[in-house]
């Protein structure tokens, strides 16, 4: 295993003439929890979309687990072990919680069309095992609702947790969380920080999160990268980043630092 689960170099994304991500270098050490922060519109989600294969970067390379992801379809990258959640929850609304998780096992399940039609013993065992695993993951992530309930009928918090459970079903090496605490109150956010740590340790994976809530970011991440209008402006530990002049400026706004006096 290499030390870097992800090594992105010189990533550039342009839409028309607009530069959304501007030659960003970004590494994630295996087993760490890192955060990508920056104001709205700084290009964080765009960067996620490049990693997961939704966008093709205009320039730059991404190595994931020692292999380049260029030219791979999103489902192939997912099967390599990159799982994500979404800023706006994107569960399969009219499928049950269990089914949602089981969809993400697609790449790992072997039962094909014929085995399914004839209900071969192997396929049945596999389905049962998958269902059990799904229930375990749902438990593990602390989804309180009925696992046989439709995802859309779960509470907001449960939906967020179910998204993580679904992502974990991919058996990811790298888990990408896109603003996981958006819409949570401070108590829920605190619980979430503990949960992310638990996931990392129990599943032995690496976590990359996009966050807005500085408290969450500072509480959970070992390294922080700050993006601002598509460019990387700072990188380091929480302390380092917090002390960084440019970060303060980007977050508090110049107007505040000047005008308030």
């Amino acid at each position, binding site marked *: 295993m290499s030390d870097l689960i992800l090594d992105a170099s010189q990533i550039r994304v342009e839409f028309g003439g607009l530069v959304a991500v501007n030659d960003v270098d970004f590494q994630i050490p295996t087993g760490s929890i890192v955060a990508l922060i920056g104001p709205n519109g700084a290009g964080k*989600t765009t960067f996620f979309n490049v990693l997961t294969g939704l966008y093709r970067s205009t320039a730059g390379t991404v190595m994931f687990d020692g292999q380049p992801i260029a030219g791979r379809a999103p489902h192939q990258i997912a099967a390599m072990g990159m799982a994500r959640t979404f800023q706006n929850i994107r569960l399969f609304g*009219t499928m049950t919680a269990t089914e949602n998780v089981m969809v993400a096992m697609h790449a790992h399940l072997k039962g094909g069309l014929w085995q399914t039609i004839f209900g071969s013993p192997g396929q049945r065992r596999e389905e049962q095992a998958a269902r059990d695993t799904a229930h375990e993951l749902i438990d593990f992530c602390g989804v309180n609702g009925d696992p046989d309930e439709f995802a*859309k009928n779960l509470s907001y918090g449960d939906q967020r947790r179910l998204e993580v459970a679904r992502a974990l079903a991919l058996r990811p090496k790298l888990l990408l969380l896109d603003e996981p605490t958006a819409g949570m109150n401070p108590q829920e956010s605190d619980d979430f920080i503990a949960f992310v740590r638990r996931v990392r340790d129990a599943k032995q994976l690496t976590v990359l999160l996009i966050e807005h809530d500085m408290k969450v970011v500072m509480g959970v991440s070992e390294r922080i990268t700050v993006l601002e209008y598509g460019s990387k402006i700072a990188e380091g530990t929480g302390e380092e980043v917090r002390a960084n002049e440019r970060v303060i400026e980007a977050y508090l706004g110049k107007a505040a630092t000047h005008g308030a006096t």
Partner: protein
Amino acid sequence: MAVVTTPGTGTGARRLRRVAVPALFLIGGLSVPTVVTNVGAFEDRWFPLTTMVLCGIFVMFTLGLNIVVGYAGLLDLGYVAFFLFGAYTAGWLMSSFFFQIDPGIHIFDAAINPDSPGINLSFWIVVPIAAVVAAIAGVIIGAPTLRLKSDYLALVTLGFGEILPQAFRNGESIKGFNLSNGTKGIGPTNPLDMGWLSWTGVGKDAINVFDYKTRYYVIFALCVIFILISLRLRDGKLGRAWLAIREDELAASLMGVPLMRTKLWAYGVGAAAGGIGGAFYCVSLGGVQVDTFNFQFSVIVLCMVILGGMANVYGCILGAVILTWVNYTGMKEIGNSVNNTFGTEISVPKYQFLIFGIVLVLMMLFRRDGMLPAARQKHSREIDAQIEKIGTEGVA
């Protein structure tokens, strides 16, 4: 049987229903020919076996289209293409049409003349072949078009549904080779052979032209098999992937579901049912007529799926049976009754399109999930104003 994890399967009443519904369906379905026996009687006038056989055929089509539209959420307006391939496959392989092959090939067939030229295969061999031919056609049609947006996909499938019949209509002389016999169609085809059942005392080599009872049992059996396939697939890995794609294609692909392959499977399986239905239709009518294959067919089958309830197998069966009956018997008989009672002369079947059109529109406006909505749709009455926002950050 695998446990289906639809909400609330745990309760006793639900469990009972899970056994009772299929049992009732089987008993009811099997008893139809014994009920409808007296020629000219009320039940024969209103529920003739000829129509019941057609109901079976349309159930098959509806279940096939349901896989594509209901399960996977891909709007196919050219389903007639698969019907066509199934029917012509039977026409080619169960008749003397290819008279160039002389002496003919005869395999377990029931040709009237055992020395007739052409390819004469048993219906039971033709069924899987028709399924495969149609499935391959489905994949070929699907492959270049499945990455299109939903409404464009509908248009392209419609295009194929228009081109193929025209090609077969004009396929009388392709460089001198007669592929389809043009507007004259192919026929007569060999009768349905039931010889393989002779040891039970039921079967006979070839069933009589008027033996709708046997025909009914055959299509009923074929339907039961495909119903089982539909139900099993829905609960398996592939079915989940279809539903996921229907719900949110992008999220599905990010969860490791290969979009193209999964959609092509839906096309293939759905087309196979069309092929089987087509082959049976051909044998049941004793030939193929190219004019059978029109856009209206595709829409009527779509109506059946929608009326019954998308993605719900039993709903689809109900939708198919009701609309087929209305189409072939109900409308005529209701018209007759009305005219007899009131002394009018309204030709009710003339309003067929009107009725189908109104059914479609009203269903879309007031009961989008059909008469028997799939359990998972019941809750979706309320439209989520989900905001598609992924990736808009930075694009503005």
